[in-house]
């Protein structure tokens, strides 16, 4: 039931950079992420969207081996060029992978940077630790070059500055410079632009996309913002209640969604479509807390199309090599025009 092409692990295409299979994350018997599987190829930019409690960040943290204390991942996460499974790998092994094969950018740049260390040294450090530069002098020169690549004016001076001397957007660019320093095979970004102003967000998105394109890195981009994913990624996976509910090429998923949740999400985020009274389409109810989603289809308690059959778990229905959905009452395929937003009769105060 893995939402990925039906090829055995051995037959995985040699272009796959990341292959996640049957990933579960559990805490005290409660499943927060269930049976998640996907692959990302070199140079491919894939978005993972979902609301709070959907498990999108836990999926990213499992890939990075950074799950908080008490949470357990099971299943398999394989990265090209790394001889072992990332699930269950000890910290010594993961610290050799992190910052080299996998790099990450999180939402809050200030917590990712060391406030007492000059920015240039922080970038040089990641090059020296992984021995990708032979000595301090060349690592320093590379750090200045990276700061120039992320568009900081006067990179020489920036390298000598401390994190607090930068604005939020500039700090995020420093974090991106660190992440890209070792030309990672996979860049994981978790809400990297959520805390930024729109003009700064545009800048950072552009730098992320260019950074991974120049290196042919795979990108896993996590956000709640549909428009950001559609702008930055080629493929999108929709997560709800700890499961992947739909995936496919950005254009296909956002113009012809199949899962009722995806359809509702697109309708609710489109602020240009209103009913006769000027009201927006909504999804009724609210997102349950993590681990408290209904059994069977996780969306059924908020879905206007749910029937008795939805109490059993819907199968993943593949619609292409990287696309599919898990819904008993999908939006009818093709023929429909527009965004497939819910009709306005479905809109309500909730």
């Amino acid at each position, binding site marked *: 039931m893995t939402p990925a092409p039906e090829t055995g692990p051995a037959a995985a295409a040699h272009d796959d950079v990341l292959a996640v299979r049957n990933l579960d994350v559990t805490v005290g018997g409660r499943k927060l992420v269930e049976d998640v599987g996907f692959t990302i190829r070199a140079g491919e930019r894939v978005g993972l969207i979902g609301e709070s409690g959907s498990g999108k960040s836990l999926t990213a943290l499992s890939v990075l081996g950074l799950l908080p204390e008490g949470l357990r991942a099971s299943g398999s996460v394989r990265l090209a060029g790394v001889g072992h499974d990332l699930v269950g790998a000890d910290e010594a092994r993961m610290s050799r992978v992190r910052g080299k094969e996998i790099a990450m950018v999180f939402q809050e740049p200030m917590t990712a940077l060391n406030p007492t260390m000059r920015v240039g040294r922080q970038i040089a450090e990641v090059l020296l630790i992984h021995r990708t530069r032979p000595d301090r002098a060349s690592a320093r020169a590379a750090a200045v070059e990276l700061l120039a690549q992320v568009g900081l004016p006067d990179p020489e001076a920036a390298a000598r500055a401390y994190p607090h001397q930068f604005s939020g957007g500039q700090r995020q660019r420093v974090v991106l410079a660190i992440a890209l320093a070792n030309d990672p095979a996979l860049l994981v970004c978790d809400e990297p632009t959520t805390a930024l102003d729109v003009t700064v967000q545009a800048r950072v998105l552009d730098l992320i996309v260019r950074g991974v394109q120049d290196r042919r890195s795979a990108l896993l981009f996590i956000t709640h913002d549909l428009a950001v994913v559609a702008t930055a990624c080629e493929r999108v996976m929709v997560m709800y209640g700890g499961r992947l509910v739909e995936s496919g090429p950005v254009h296909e998923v956002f113009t012809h969604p199949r899962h009722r949740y995806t359809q509702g999400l697109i309708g609710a985020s489109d602020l240009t479509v209103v009913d006769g009274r000027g009201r927006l389409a909504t999804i009724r109810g*609210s997102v349950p807390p993590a681990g408290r989603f209904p059994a069977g289809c996780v969306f059924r308690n908020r879905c206007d199309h749910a029937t008795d059959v939805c109490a059993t778990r819907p199968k993943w229905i593949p619609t292409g090599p990287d696309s599919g959905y898990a819904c008993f009452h999908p939006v009818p395929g093709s023929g429909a025009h527009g965004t497939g937003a819910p009709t306005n009769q479905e809109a309500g105060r909730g």
Partner: protein
Amino acid sequence: MAEQPTSTPLAPEPRTGPADAISVRDVTRVYQRPRTSLRRPSPPVHALRGVSFGIPQGQRFGIVGESGCGKSTLLRIMAGLDRPTSGGVAIDGRDITGLRERRLKFVRERLQLVFQDPMSSLDPRMRVGDIVAEPLVAQGHGNRRERVAELLEAVGLRADAADRYPHQFSGGQRQRISIARALAPRPKIIVADEPVSALDVSVRAQVLNLIADLVDELSLTLVFVSHDLSVVRHVCDRVAVMHAGQIVETGSTEQVYEDPRHSYTRRLIAAVPTLGKALSGVSAADLNRE
């Protein structure tokens, strides 16, 4: 600072009149940063540099701008929570500049605030019923239980929510609680500071619809502050774009979005990612171009 006689408004365009729910006349606000050097004081921060506009009764007025543009300072001054360095603010034609707190009672009744983060603006140790009733207590109204039940129902919560605590609710429900609290003293003006920015997409639409319903039913004047231009476009009739302590452009939302005059407004609109733009091929590089 004493009440100042009305000086002639310096900014040309905004029309302000006595009928306006809120009128802002040439407001400036200068902050002094703490010293960082022994030799000289820090340079002053000009948070607002001559802001003027009027909001007629019943209008939905949007204020957009990026962090540091002065929109929060402006909002605090409009609500009588801070004082301008110069200039004045009138609510329903009554000047509030320089009034003592106890003479601001009419402002607290007429104008109520809804904040971005409902977790930090709701006291976690108070029951929801007491939170919603608090403005009524402060203003000495009686018969509170009934009013609380009525308010909770108006925002789409069950009456038994009154006996529970804020942490027992989801983000969207908490924002409904803050809206109920704001409505308690029957205000005519609601000032909402990023009220949906912290909410999930599927819940954001519900709360925006709720705000629209209440503004219609209760004939409220709405001031809606946001960094999100798409939300302001949906909610508001008129919009003011702020940049570096000044209003660089005002107009009807349609006009400002369709035909922005100021270069900053154009840049701001160009940088907003939308699903429609993305699906017609606008890339991250394009957003960053202007």
